[in-house]
């Protein structure tokens, strides 16, 4: 009897030791070995092994034997053009919220098979069911963030708390603005209290008026040049993304950050799979891999934007844990609004207004005067030489 019982107990114990294998039942991905995966991501948006960080793509290739073709884009619109041309088949893309809404509307995304993405359970509740993908069938959030106002404490007289600081005459020639229409108009619209997704023509007209008023105060319209200009004190005020402020602060501790009281733009970049992807299973495997704790922490540390991953926020390896700029508490949390996909006429109108501002906004009077004076001088000289030649010929 005793032996029988001890045999049973041993058998049960043995079975219990195999439970870990069943608990995280890993699907077998060896059939994907040797295939290729085309990933299309923003530039500098993944931990790539520089400065001693983890090289995420290499790690994935090592673990699963799948080769990654990694290419980059710098704007949602250019990524959309590449995708729509039909010339290149990407397996994983990482667009922003309003672009995802557009892609879903045009039926360019494939539904995700979440049985291949069990790590999705780590995404926080507040980043699920967002407007662009209300049923969470197409996307998995990658990074989130907000736009705010960066200022140089030694160059401003008092700490700003409103977007109006960018219209302050005292800082003429020391103000920077976004060099793309959506973000620039977004700031003007927040300042005027409009919705950043308004479709009313009067709202857009008011916004362009305000931007044109600001034009002579702005030293330049920038995207990545903002880093240099703020770091070496060339400019006093600039709007940019919260995570990028942290990078600038490393080089120049005189800088400070504030979320203006009128409200800011809140964005989510999410991973999705285009409809014409050739290696969908590997793509889902890649997305799941990005959600693993070690990988997500490495990415969050590298990119410096806020993360929607619950394990990262609690991890001790996360350098930016509790950072108030990225994760403002209830008291300091700003009003936020996400960009939505504008309809065709509004987009055209916005682009037309932006061109008006950028191309015709600048008075080129000096250039015209200089050019015409030079042209007159050249003509006078040529005529003089011609007359001299004729005189000389007349002598013979």
């Amino acid at each position, binding site marked *: 009897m005793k032996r029988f019982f001890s045999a049973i107990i041993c058998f049960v114990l043995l079975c219990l030791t195999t439970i870990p294998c069943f608990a995280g039942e890993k699907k077998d991905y060896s059939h994907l070995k040797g295939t290729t995966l085309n990933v299309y991501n*923003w*530039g*500098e948006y993944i931990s790539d092994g520089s400065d001693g960080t983890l090289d995420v793509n290499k790690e994935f290739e090592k673990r699963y034997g799948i080769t990654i073709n990694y290419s*980059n884009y710098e704007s949602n619109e250019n990524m959309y053009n590449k995708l729509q041309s039909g010339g290149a088949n990407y397996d994983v893309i990482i667009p922003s919220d309003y672009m995802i809404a557009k892609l879903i509307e045009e039926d360019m995304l494939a539904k995700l098979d979440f049985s291949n993405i069990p790590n999705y359970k780590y995404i926080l509740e507040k980043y699920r069911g967002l407007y662009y993908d209300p049923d969470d069938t197409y996307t998995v959030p990658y990074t989130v963030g907000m736009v705010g106002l960066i200022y140089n404490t030694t160059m401003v007289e008092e700490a700003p708390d409103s977007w109006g600081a960018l219209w302050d005459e005292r800082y003429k020639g020391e103000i920077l603005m976004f060099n793309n229409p959506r973000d620039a108009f977004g700031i003007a619209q927040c300042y005027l209290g409009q919705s950043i997704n308004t479709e009313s023509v009067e709202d857009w007209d008011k916004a362009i008026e305000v931007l044109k008023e600001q034009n002579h105060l702005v030293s330049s319209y920038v995207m*990545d040049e903002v880093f240099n200009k703020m770091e070496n004190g060339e400019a006093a005020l600039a709007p940019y993304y919260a995570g990028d402020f942290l990078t600038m602060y490393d080089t120049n501790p005189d800088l400070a950050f504030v979320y203006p009281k009128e409200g800011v733009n809140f964005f989510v970049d999410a991973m999705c799979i285009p409809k014409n992807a050739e290696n969908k299973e590997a793509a889902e495997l890649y997305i799941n891999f990005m959600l693993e704790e070690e990988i997500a922490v490495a990415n969050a540390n590298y990119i410096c934007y806020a993360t929607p991953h619950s394990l990262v926020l609690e991890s001790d390896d996360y350098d930016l844990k509790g950072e108030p700029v990225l994760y403002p508490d209830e008291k300091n949390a700003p009003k936020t609004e996400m960009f939505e996909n504008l309809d065709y006429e509004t987009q055209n109108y916005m682009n037309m207004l932006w061109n008006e501002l950028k191309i015709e906004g600048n008075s080129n009077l000096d250039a015209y005067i200089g050019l015409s004076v030079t042209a007159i001088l050249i003509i006078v000289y040529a005529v003089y030489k011609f007359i001299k030649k004729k005189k000389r010929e007349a002598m013979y």
Partner: protein
Amino acid sequence: MTKKTSLGGKLYTALVFIFLYAPIAVLILFSFNSGKSTAVFEGFSLHWYEELFRDAATLTAFKNSLIIAVVSSIISTVMGTAAATAIFGYKNKLLKTSVMTVTNIPMMNPEIVTGIAMMLLFVFIGGMFGKTGTLGFTTLTIAHVTFELPYVILNVLPKLKQTDAHLSEAAQDLGCTPFQAFYKVVLPAIMPGIISGLMMAFTLSIDDFIISYFVSGTSSQTLPIRIFSMTKRRVTPDMYALSTLIFLAILILLVISNVISSRGYKKNTKKGGAKK
């Protein structure tokens, strides 16, 4: 007898050189920056050169750029030389000028027009065979050959005009087949033009951004595209290290080639000007 250049002339030349090379000098200086910023020089270090060799995506992009440049410049030089020889031999004036006009089109066309046109063409042809994802190395090479061809032809044609028109006939009189006459007599004479056409094609290919942007595919990202994709966040300083290395490599190559050609020139003039 060399004319003595005045002080004003020397000063002007110096200013022109400073204007041309100041950005490159700043680039080289900041490639040795120990900090991440490109505006504040924090200290001297070789950190970014180490980083460059760990940045797999940039190195892949650079490798792609080099491979496309070498392959496309060789193909376009061969095609261009053949085309130039044929164009030179045309007797019909109308045909000659119309062919020259057609070859000049890729050169005169704004690059963005060529880029979009080629992308649409490749997708269209892919669509005819029911394939998507046609953009890749092959399409990039074809596009690069297309816009390099006019430059090669324009480099080789003047050399053809310079060589004695009866050289090829004389060689055939002495027993060469027409092909041998070309290969052994005409080709060495026009070789300087071919070499300069090759180098021009190579430079244009490495430098090209707009056409490559539209025509590259999932695995064929070239270096300019990679650098441009960083402009939303920040171009990392290991790009400066890469640019410095490219600049030094090309500088050394040019110096060597100049030394060789000047030695050859000295040798020829010493022999009493028998060769030309």
